[in-house]
């Protein structure tokens, strides 16, 4: 091998990746070429320096901080409160008025979610709201242990499961709805909150809207939309 070729092979030589004959040729060249021998020495030294770097000490609270962030990722209590405020006084008319108001507010923005919100208002007040949680449900929910923070592990499990459900839903809304059994309102609220927190709620509402022939689709769509709107209102407040 000539000098140029041998130099190009030094990396593989160092890693022991050359076939025997080629290796022998490079060896022969190294015996004659001071420059290549020096380069190989320097490469070895470089690798030794890299591999000699000691393991750093892991920051002592890294794992705890990660766990704390995961626990804190749950939608805030304040957030939940506003969701309740939206639903709780909701005689059907108040809800319609609210939605229509929001629609007027945002319809100029060209945001499709908002336009659909306006369209959806009648659906909500008709068939869906009948099944939507009542004020009594929310009073009950407020008194229930939900208000107490869940232990971090269970909270993690809960969010993980919600994420998994949302991913399944996003992947194939039609199939998801078909397999979806009886779901409590509380679970739906949690799904919607989580979706809004992830920023997926408006897309989901649109997707579900597009498969509207399924009996559950409009109600679920409305739920996601509501969560998304609540979050926008919250964001404006900040």
């Amino acid at each position, binding site marked *: 091998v000539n000098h140029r070729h041998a130099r190009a092979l030094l*990396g593989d030589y160092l890693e022991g990746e050359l076939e025997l004959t080629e290796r022998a040729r490079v060896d022969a060249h190294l015996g004659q070429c001071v420059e290549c021998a020096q*380069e190989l020495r320097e490469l070895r030294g470089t*690798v030794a320096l890299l591999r000699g*770097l*000691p*393991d750093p000490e892991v920051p002592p609270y*890294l*794992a705890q901080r990660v766990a704390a962030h995961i626990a804190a990722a749950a939608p805030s209590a304040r957030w939940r409160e506003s969701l309740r405020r939206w639903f709780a006084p909701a005689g059907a008319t108040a809800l319609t008025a609210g939605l229509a108001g929001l629609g007027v507010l945002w319809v100029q923005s060209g945001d499709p979610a908002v336009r659909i919100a306006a369209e959806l208002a009648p659906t909500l007040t008709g068939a869906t709201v009948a099944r939507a949680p009542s004020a009594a449900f929310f009073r009950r929910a407020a008194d229930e242990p939900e208000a107490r923070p869940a232990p971090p*592990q269970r909270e993690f499990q809960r969010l993980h499961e919600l994420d998994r459900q949302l991913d399944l839903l996003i992947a194939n809304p039609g199939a998801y709805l078909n397999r979806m059994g009886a779901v409590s309102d509380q679970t739906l609220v949690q799904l919607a909150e989580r979706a809004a927190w992830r920023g997926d709620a408006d897309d989901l509402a649109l997707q579900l809207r597009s498969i509207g022939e399924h009996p559950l689709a409009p109600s679920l769509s409305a739920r996601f939309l509501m969560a998304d709107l609540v979050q926008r209102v919250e964001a404006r407040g900040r």
Partner: protein
Amino acid sequence: MSYEMVEPRSAARLESAARPIRHQADPDGELVARWQAGDGSAFEALVGRHQLRVFRLLLRMLGSREEAEDAAQDAFLSLHRHGHRFRRESRFSTFVYRVAANAALNRRRTLGRGRSRVEELKTRQQIGADLPSSPRNPEDAAGGAELQAHVQRALCELPADLRAAVVLYDIEGQSYRDIARILDVPEGTVKSRIHRARSALRKSLRPLVSGEPGGEKP
């Protein structure tokens, strides 16, 4: 409270179908299966298991403990968020490295301070400000904070893609094949990046590694 809305048999499926191929090969398989079945403590155990790898990679990629710590936290949160998409086509540790490498590369992009720092380093190097007073035997590399800092600075001068490849190979001890998966590039690209990175490092570390022939390993 139960969330078995869909796929009530998922846990059973994890046990039976996904297991045979990868499970034995992957030391994390058991924990990953538990986590994916909804066991939160399994994720905590996985964090404990992988935090050194993740932090070491990020420290060598980013060059500062503070940044590495933030990025490690981002990486684990991202892992938590996307981990259920892990399909066991590779070892879990490869998946973790992938998430961590992305956290480092994203961070670099966001911070956008690579260039000015490189310029500063070049200047310092030209005036020899960083060099130890006399070249040392590379075998002593583990000693000397000064020496380590010098190697770290040389790493930080590399373009991020070369740095990622060489750190994964020489420091993390990953195979070409796994690095190809981690960085999502062909194996040939991985090899060439490693060689280019070493060659650049050789130049910037020359004062430290051009010792007498006696100092080298066979």
